[in-house]
């Protein structure tokens, strides 16, 4: 091969990669987007907002759904469960003993497509209708799973009724499949979102009946493979497909074990030692996969940063019978495949953020902690955002700021970097648990009743 040809080949690779990067940065195709909440700088992105300030538009969304919006080109997709009757109102805060509720009315499981420019509903599609059989935690919804899209189709999963559907961008249903609806621990409801890679759609369904993971052909919904999982239904974590320098793998996080599979469902490595309940989703940054769980009553609340290429059992704290006190004071450890880990750093609901080289932990109780994402060295310890705030949405970062959205709808804007400093707070005055979408200079925040498109306007 001549030098010119080699150069042309290399340039073509660079061009393709650059194009893909640009294309990806212009979309928000899944839960937490292409980079797990870390967004490239963009002067159009808002720094200050309220329910009126810097609001490009606000669209009411029927029903209740804590799924995040996904955005592709000129469309924003949302799911919701709409009841015919009045339902119990979700209560923000930090609790675990509230009554779990049954539905009062017939529910319709809906998909909405909104126009990017003006927020108008372009189409809506009812995918299922019934009086829900499963109960849920009062803070959960029957539409908590975030859809995923490849730009041609939208893949929607409603765990509460076991329904998976593929729709085209016009809202026509291409296929549906029911994989069964199952209770999770103490009827808390479902939340784990689907993951997409190539032609395959992956669903992890950990439940109290028989936990499993399935891979479906995204074109037809045909089941390609299914594996049983030894999980007890304590998990609401979305799997992540990890394309690393060695291979492509699907990392699934569960209370009874972190397991990574190849694309055919063969186990590659596993790790034991999580907290009693697992909600945060694994994500990729800096060539590592970050894993955590942090139920407050658990003897472990671990965070792991894992190198590619692991094999077999890489557990650090597998002893289920070890007492809580043995974990303290919670020093950092590492091993061949574990770049760093802490036994007591994990969060209950929020997923962490890696932004500008720092790993940010947003504790549900409204405290922010920063570590070096590569080494795990602590940069600063627990810093209080505000007394009395609960946090479920995952943090995000852009323009040198880290953003933490409370359940009360207040976003705390914090300077990224080694010094903790709250710059200001932006309030929407309505409860939210959904993690926002950020795309093309716009921030999309879903509250209990509406979706906001927020961007910096000319004079603000």
């Amino acid at each position, binding site marked *: 091969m001549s030098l010119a040809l080699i150069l042309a080949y290399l340039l073509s690779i660079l061009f393709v990669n650059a194009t893909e990067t640009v294309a990806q940065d212009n979309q928000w195709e899944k839960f937490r987007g292409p980079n797990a909440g870390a967004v490239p700088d963009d002067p159009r992105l808002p720094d200050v907002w309220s329910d009126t300030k810097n609001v490009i538009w606000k669209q009411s969304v029927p029903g209740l759904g804590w799924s995040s919006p996904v955005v592709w080109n000129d469309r924003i997709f949302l799911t919701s469960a709409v009841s015919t009757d009045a339902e119990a109102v979700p*209560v923000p*805060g*930090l*609790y675990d003993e509230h009554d779990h509720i049954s539905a009062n009315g017939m529910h319709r499981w809906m998909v909405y497509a909104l126009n990017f420019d003006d927020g108008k509903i372009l189409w809506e599609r009812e995918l299922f209708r019934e009086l829900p059989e499963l109960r849920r935690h009062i803070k959960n919804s029957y539409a908590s799973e975030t859809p995923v899209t490849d730009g041609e189709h939208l893949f929607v999963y409603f765990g509460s009724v076991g329904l998976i559907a593929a729709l085209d961008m016009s809202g026509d249903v291409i296929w549906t499949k029911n994989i069964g609806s199952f209770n999770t621990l103490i009827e808390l409801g479902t939340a784990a979102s689907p993951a997409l890679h190539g032609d395959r759609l992956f669903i992890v369904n950990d439940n109290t009946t028989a936990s499993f993971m399935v891979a479906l052909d995204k074109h037809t919904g045909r089941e390609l493979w299914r594996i049983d999982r030894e999980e007890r239904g304590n998990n609401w974590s979305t799997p992540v497909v990890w394309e690393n320098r060695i291979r492509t793998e699907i990392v699934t996080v569960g209370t009874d074990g972190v397991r990574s599979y190849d694309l055919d469902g063969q186990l590659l490595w596993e790790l034991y030692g999580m907290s009693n309940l697992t909600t945060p989703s694994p994500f990729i940054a800096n060539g590592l996969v970050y894993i955590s769980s942090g139920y407050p009553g658990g*003897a472990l609340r671990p965070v792991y940063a894992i190198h590619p290429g692991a094999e077999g059992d890489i557990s650090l704290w597998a002893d289920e019978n070890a007492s*809580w006190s043995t974990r*303290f004071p919670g020093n950092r450890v590492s091993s061949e495949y574990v770049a760093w880990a802490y036994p007591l750093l994990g969060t209950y609901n929020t997923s962490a953020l890696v932004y500008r080289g720092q790993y940010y932990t947003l504790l*549900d109780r409204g405290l922010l902690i920063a570590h070096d994402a590569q080494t795990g060295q602590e940069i600063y310890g627990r810093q*209080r955002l505000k007394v*009395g705030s609960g946090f479920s949405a995952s943090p995000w970062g852009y323009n040198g700021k880290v953003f933490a959205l409370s359940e009360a709808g207040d976003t705390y804007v914090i300077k990224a970097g080694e010094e903790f400093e709250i710059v200001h707070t932006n309030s929407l005055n309505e409860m939210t648990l959904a993690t926002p979408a950020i795309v093309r200079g716009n921030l999309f925040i879903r509250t209990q009743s509406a979706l906001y498109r927020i961007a910096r306007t000319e004079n603000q």
Partner: protein
Amino acid sequence: MRRHIFFKRTFIATVFVFVSSLSQIIQAQDFHEIIHLEVPADLVQLEDSKLFIAAEATLTIFDISKLDSPQRLSSYEFPEKIWDFSIIGTHVYVAADFFGLGILDISDPINPELIGSVKTPGQAKDVEISGATALLADHMSGVDLVDITDPETPTSIGSVYLDGYGRDVAASGTIGYAVDDPSGFYVIDLQERDSWEPLSAIQSADGPRIVEIEDDLALLVGKGTLQIYDISNPTAPTHRSNYGTPGGAHRAVLSDNHAYVADGKMGLLVVDLNNPLVPTVAASYRHSEPVRDVAVYGNLVVIAVGPLPTGIRRSQGGGGVILLNRGTQQN
């Protein structure tokens, strides 16, 4: 030979049981039942001539100036379950689960009035007062601190991070104490309002649900065990001893270096802690129903009796309250 050993052991065991039973009978005579009130009761407290009874979400006040004929004065129902309460002067501070902190004015005990409240972020499980600060064990939210300078407008001023679930709090002077599930015992400087980080945190307690303070002694109750700590140095509390009670210790209060223990089906147990290394049973009182809670005021002891809670619920409903006099003389 083996048969001889068997009979010898059986004889010793029989004597032990007999002596133990005799001891119980003798100790039972230390308490004299004054009156048994047929009222639902999960929690009891005494203050001067008033008896306060919490059952589920209702707080009821009795006048017990005449011990043999208590008079019900009033009841106040909160929107949520009462997990605990604290009486300071003419105010009752109530930890009412999702409702948060409620402040009742009882200057007219026939007409208690809710004069202030603040919703805490978690679930209010216990409240103690230190000066103008209310400490609340707020479950997943840890310990929340509320300024009660103006009881009509209580204001959240801080929160202390606990590793587990905040279960109970206590206060002595400007020092606060907290326990969490599964294993934490924390000491908090209530004057250090900038950081609200504990002065010390021990993670070796065993499922503590209750913390009581008296002088340099901290009593933790959890997993059926009294756990005794020396807190003379607040930055380094020292574990002294554990004492497993026969009834699984549900709640307890400290009075004159004695732990009065609501010991479930085994009744009321009084444990002498004058030597914290060697807790010793000083007295007990048995009743046909399990003992849920206990309060002490001078010579007067009040117990709440009834079926024991299961799981996370405080109450099985029903029950009653028994006023006991410690000693031989009834008032």
